[in-house]
């Protein structure tokens, strides 16, 4: 029933972003323009763009849904994802800007010369971006088909994928940046409006609001959403929450689509400014998730947002019978239940409907859809640069070829990645793909972060170390996730949903062992050059 307004609002967003894309298309005649917007994005602008790149539908709909249902335990995601920025700020942003050109692999292969290291780094980027992209696109299909029943999920996935390809292949990094900035603005305004409306229902008394959240009716009893233990409980839950915390805090510093944003600013100082802005904006947003989530629980009612018993059963059932997931979801949705983890996503739109009627609900739904669009655009340009620059230009062509060829490959990659992501997302749309986000973070934390940190700080780090570190981080993350309860259900071989506690040490150990077994004289000789360039910006790409 709220279909027409949300479609109209989304269409306005699309129209504006397409105008931006046409305007930006003039800058994509060179690789530097296409990948980095000529490194002319200001620090503050980039801070907003990072915010838009980072706050996915998982942040907006997922976390508010988790908080509405599990209270404090859902808020743990908000905390981890904000604290994670300290690793980006202190360890990665400035050296990356000073040593890289277009991709994360530039930093790694600065002194670890040779095509294999770069190809493995490119592969790691491609797998992280594809996992993340599929999770986002499947999410968009589910959200849209639930909010607007007239629109089937495959159509929503197709629309998101097509728009993503148009932004990236025509407008390059400049268009992607502005799509992210506009979306970040919309999302923060939405979060602010919802927070104020929630508090207005409690006479702007924090005490009354929190009192309500500490005793939310659940069946015949009440639940205290301010206390931990509703999502993570027991011994396994304890390990899971620590493991998740590790992956969240370290993984962000290895997310390739976030790292790529630092090549769009002119200097290391601007890179630092942009992280600081993002930390303020993202932090304010994550504080708001508490008000939105707890507000949804108290005002809409926890029972209306989801029913834990059914939801828990459904997750276990879907894990064992993925082919029936879609039918089951629809049945649960029909009965007014929402499945957490798979579809923990409707707390914010439901709250908006309660507070501001169908128009506000439609606006929130349109913003959520726009949020997904901005994130997948950032992922697509990252995948495009990893394939065109790392794998095609440096691995296949060994640095040969002209600008026209490479730009063609970059655009073509965006199109191919788009088609691949649409096809995979439609094929997987009935499956529980929530584990893909965890997988992306685990791979980023385990495969990328050890190699980035050792590249910058350990003289004896070698090519063998980089390859061993990335492959062990990638392999262990993949193996642990695929044998975890989230995929295998009750008969899981690996006991935790979050592999970080095992895969992150594996990545570090692989990198150390590989460096000791296969020393690399050239890498040691180039270490001073890297250090000087990282610390002073001498010779940095302009």
């Amino acid at each position, binding site marked *: 029933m709220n279909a027409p307004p949300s479609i109209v609002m989304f269409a306005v967003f699309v129209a504006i972003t397409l105008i931006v894309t046409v305007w930006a298309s003039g800058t994509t005649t060179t690789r530097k323009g296409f990948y980095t917007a000529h490194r002319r994005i200001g620090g503050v602008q980039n801070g907003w763009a990072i915010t838009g790149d980072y706050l996915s539908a998982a942040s907006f709909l997922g976390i508010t849904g988790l908080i509405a249902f599990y209270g*404090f335990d859902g*808020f*743990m995601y908000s*905390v*981890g994802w*904000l*604290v994670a*920025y*300290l*690793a980006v*700020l*202190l*360890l990665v942003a400035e050296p990356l800007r000073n040593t890289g*050109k277009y991709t994360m692999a530039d930093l790694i292969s600065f002194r670890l010369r040779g095509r294999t290291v770069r190809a493995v780094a490119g592969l790691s980027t491609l797998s992280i971006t594809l996992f993340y992209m599929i999770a986002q696109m499947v999410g968009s299909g589910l959200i849209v088909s639930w909010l607007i029943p007239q629109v089937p999920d495959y159509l929503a996935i197709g629309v998101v994928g097509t728009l993503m390809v148009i932004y990236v292949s025509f407008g390059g990094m400049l268009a992607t940046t502005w799509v992210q900035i506009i979306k970040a603005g919309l999302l923060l305004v939405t979060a602010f409006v919802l927070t104020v409306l929630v508090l207005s229902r409690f006479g702007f008394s*924090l*005490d009354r609001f*929190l*009192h309500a959240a*500490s005793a939310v009716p659940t069946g015949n009893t009440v639940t*205290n959403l*301010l*206390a*931990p*233990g509703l999502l*993570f*409980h027991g011994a396994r*839950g*304890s*390990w899971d*929450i*620590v493991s*998740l*915390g*590790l992956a969240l*805090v370290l993984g962000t510093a290895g997310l390739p689509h976030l790292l790529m944003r630092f090549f769009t600013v002119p200097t290391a*100082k601007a890179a*630092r400014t942009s992280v*600081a802005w993002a*930390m*303020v904006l993202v*932090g304010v947003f*994550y*504080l708001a998730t508490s008000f939105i989530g707890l507000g949804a629980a108290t005002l809409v009612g926890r029972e209306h947002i989801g029913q834990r018993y059914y939801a828990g059963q459904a997750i276990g059932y879907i894990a064992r019978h993925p082919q029936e997931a879609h039918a089951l979801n629809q049945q649960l949705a029909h009965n007014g239940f929402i499945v957490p983890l798979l579809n923990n996503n409707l707390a914010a739109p439901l709250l908006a409907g309660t507070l501001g009627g169908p128009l506000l609900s439609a606006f929130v739904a349109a913003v959520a859809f726009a949020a997904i669009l901005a994130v997948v655009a950032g992922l697509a340009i990252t995948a495009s640069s990893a394939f065109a620059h790392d794998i095609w230009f440096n691995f296949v062509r060994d640095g040969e070829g002209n600008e026209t060829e490479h730009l063609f490959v970059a655009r073509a990659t965006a199109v191919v990645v788009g088609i691949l992501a649409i096809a995979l997302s439609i094929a997987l749309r009935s499956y529980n793909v929530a584990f893909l986000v965890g997988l992306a973070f685990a791979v980023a934390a385990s495969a990328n972060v050890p190699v980035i940190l050792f590249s910058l700080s350990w003289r004896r780090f070698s090519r063998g170390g980089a390859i061993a570190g990335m492959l062990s981080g990638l392999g262990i993350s993949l193996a642990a996730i695929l044998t975890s309860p989230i995929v295998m259900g009750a008969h899981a071989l690996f006991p935790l949903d979050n592999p970080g506690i095992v895969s992150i040490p594996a990545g570090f150990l692989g990198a150390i062992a590989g460096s000791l077994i296969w020393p690399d004289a050239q890498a040691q000789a180039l270490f*001073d*050059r890297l*250090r*000087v*360039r990282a*610390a*002073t*910006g*001498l*010779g*940095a*790409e*302009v």
Partner: protein
Amino acid sequence: MSHHPVEPQMWETLADEPEFRALTTARRRFVIPATIFFILYYLTLPVSIAVAPQVMSRQAGPLSIAYWFALSQFVMTWVLMIAYIIRARGFDLQAARLRHREMHEVKG
């Protein structure tokens, strides 16, 4: 690859200079303790929930102790960020001096 006038052999020379060493030492003195601190402070939250769930669930004023601790992470993050931004102004000056001198020497 680089369009900068610095010659290849200059990198090693520069890396050995006292001014460069002062810059990297100053950076390291801030960044390493700050990183260890924030990771430990952060991990204390999930670990203490795992170890003492009853204590963390206890109400303290309007919120549970766990929620207060979680909110303190926001304050910790922002305070550490501001401290680094202020400290990094000094690093910028040191780096700018090194850059300026290096380019000047090569030209002269």
